[in-house]
């Protein structure tokens, strides 16, 4: 357990909370902590804070607790919390906004989620489309979970679901340019997952 000192909330923290609220278009004061979001959340077993607690810390202005939390990264974005919230708080969008803010601050509490996201975009950037076999491979390599889902691969291969050939589109340069352009104009540009994809 810990002591949370609320005597002074630094201006930076308040600004950060306001930025998250603005991006998610949520007024955190709307939340009355009924917990319906967390009651129905399918992913709580991987979380260190309940989604409700994420909102609570944002209400309190304690943004560091939220940025360092695994919860937004474990969130599957299924949207069930938002759909059922009695106060119309978009919890799902809050999770995305917190994730962006954390990444901007260089914090990635669930490295695997970040790696997966990165590899996915790289994959699309390289081919215009996502190629599952290479995505899985790359992910496993970078995340260190070398054997994950590997047992399914032979079955897929045998059934013609995956192959060595990659699916490319002719205009994949257009897509990579688009991705670069958008990310450059974006705060996320710092972390833009560029770099070549060998295949």
């Amino acid at each position: 357990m810990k002591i949370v000192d609320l005597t002074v909330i630094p201006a930076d923290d308040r600004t950060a909370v306001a930025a998250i609220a603005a991006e998610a278009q949520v007024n955190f004061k709307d939340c009355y902590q009924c917990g319906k979001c967390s009651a129905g959340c399918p992913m709580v077993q991987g979380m260190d804070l309940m989604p409700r607690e994420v909102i609570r810390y944002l209400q309190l202005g304690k943004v560091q607790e939220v940025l360092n939390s695994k919860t937004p990264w474990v969130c599957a974005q299924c949207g069930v919390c938002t759909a059922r919230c009695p106060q119309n708080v978009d919890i799902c969008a809050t999770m995305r906004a917190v994730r962006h803010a954390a990444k901007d601050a260089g914090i990635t509490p669930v490295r695997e989620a970040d790696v997966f996201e990165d590899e996915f975009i790289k994959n699309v950037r390289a081919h215009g489309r996502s190629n599952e076999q290479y995505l899985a491979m790359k992910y496993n390599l970078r995340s260190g979970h070398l054997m994950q889902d590997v047992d399914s691969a032979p079955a897929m291969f045998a059934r013609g679901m995956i192959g060595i050939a990659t699916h490319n589109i002719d205009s994949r340069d257009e897509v990579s340019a688009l991705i670069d352009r958008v990310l450059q104009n974006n705060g996320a540009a710092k972390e833009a997952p560029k770099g070549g994809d060998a295949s």
Partner: protein
Amino acid sequence: MSRIGVFICYCGSNIAGTVDVEKVAEVARTLPNVVHAETNKYTCSDPGQAGVKAAIEKYNIDRVVMGTCSPRMHELTWRKLLADTPVNPYMLEVANLREQCSWVHKDKEVGTAKAIDLIKMAVAKVDKLSPLKSTQIPVTKRALVVGGGIAGMQAALDIADAGYQVTVVERETSLGGKMVMLDKTFPTMDCSACICTPKMSEVGSHPNITVKSYAEVESVEGYVGNFDVTIREKAKYIDYNLCTGCGACTTKCPTKVINNFEQGMSARPAIYKMFAQAVPAKPVIDAEHCRKIQENKCGACAKICPTGAIHYDDEDKVTTERYGAIVLTTGYQLIDWKPLYPEYGGGKYPDVITGLQFERLVNASGPTEGHILRPSDGKEPKNVVIIKCVGSRDPHKGVAYCSRACCMYGAKHAHQFLDKVPDGRCFVFYMDVRTPGKGYDEFYMNTLQDGAQYLRGRVSKIYKEGDRLVCLGEDTLTSAQIRIEADMVVLETAMVPAEGVDKLGSMLGVTRDKDLWLTEAHAKLRPVETNTAGVFLAGVAQGPKDIPDTVCQAGAAASKVIGLLNHDHLESNPQISRVNEALCQGDGACVNICPYHAITLVQKQFRENSQKITRTVASVNPGLCQGCGACTVTCRAGAMDLLGYTNESLMREVDALCQW
């Protein structure tokens, strides 16, 4: 030429201490149209008043300025005084020389100068006033109570006991409202039927009370003391003069209809009494489901009726009667939670029930004779989950407000379940526990001692697995996701206004708030009055509340009605709006702005330029107008004026004030 008398009071030294009263009188004598000015030590005393009367007579005065204390103190005293003289009581203006002059200034010169100005203003204003006569509005000494629940019954009994005739209009076929459906009442746990049904029979048999059951108010005309109310009594198909209430007919009817009184958990015949102790204690035929009326088949009930009371050709009865006062006790219904909460099964699961269904289940006269059994399979549930605030405090899906009674009856349900099923477990999901009321929090604490497990959080989903209902919630106090396999779930759903109350409100000019509850005239000071004089409120119709508060309010409304009916006549306030029809162009701006619906547009014939023409003009109902004057400012044509505060008199008052 007017003849103004000015009377200036010393008020002992209260005024005279800071105001040179004699000098004020001296100046007053010099003002235009002032024929007499005098001072008095205590004007409000008997000799003081006699002096004023004498002066009025002596100087043939036709209007009066009283330079005394605040009009809020003695304006009515002076009006009464003038009523004994030839001067019209409304030819009066009070200059506030005490509260707003002598008492707030220390310097006598300053006070005197200001007092002179105040007298000048009053003289200028009174000079332009005209005599007003209050009309006598007769009071019909009967009251109408709309709604026969506990609020309506209490109000009716109180009014009737005071000696006035009361008509109770009840939409259902019996008195009793929601209270008679309940099993026990918190926090004392006395049996609801035991305290409610005696009231019902008292109302039913009171010599001063007429009950019109199965009836609704169709229209209302008129104003305080004189409401002409049209009531439609739906056809009952039974002659209540002949019917003895033996009930033989109800046993013979072959039709089965869902029983709404039992919250859909049992069936009733098409000829039925709502419940055993119904008042009136006689059945009605539900025409929609009667085979005789619909298909001209059957007719079993008429065959068995020993008194020949059944008439299949009965028709609705519409009557119009005059009432002096109306009490609205239209109550509530539970929010229809099914379309709002698909995550709770949306009504798919018969064992997810409402609090009112639970009341019937636990009630000895209910469908299970008081045994708590699941509607789906009749088994006794061992794990029960109670969810509070379903629909309440949920602006996204339901209503934003707190329904106020659910915390207590939720605790009551937990207590009752644990009492009847000793090996059962009960979980209560709550957001807050709100128990202000005598003995309420103690009741809640006892429920915890009984073993009810309170969990702070809203339930996100109820789903079926096997024959159990899985509830997913969060205990926000431990931040743990909670999973409970329940046999039955009770939803404590929100109270919402009874159907049709919006229409009734607009018929009577009673405003509804954003949630459609009827609005009282003042949230603190006039809690049972409405903006329409003569119309009162009691019970949940005004907003969610529990039985004790409802009964309190009903008594308060009744006492207001008794106070009103106690008068033979009401003095109408003559200081109301008046239309100058020559100027009125009938654009109706005033109509929209009037809070009392006192202004209507009428077609009237005029002679203009020696031609007969018909024009639209505004017309003020003197029984409804309360004299706020909002209409006068809206009328840019200057056709609407407020008697007693006319544009002319106020303009002259301003002019006089500017001359200081």
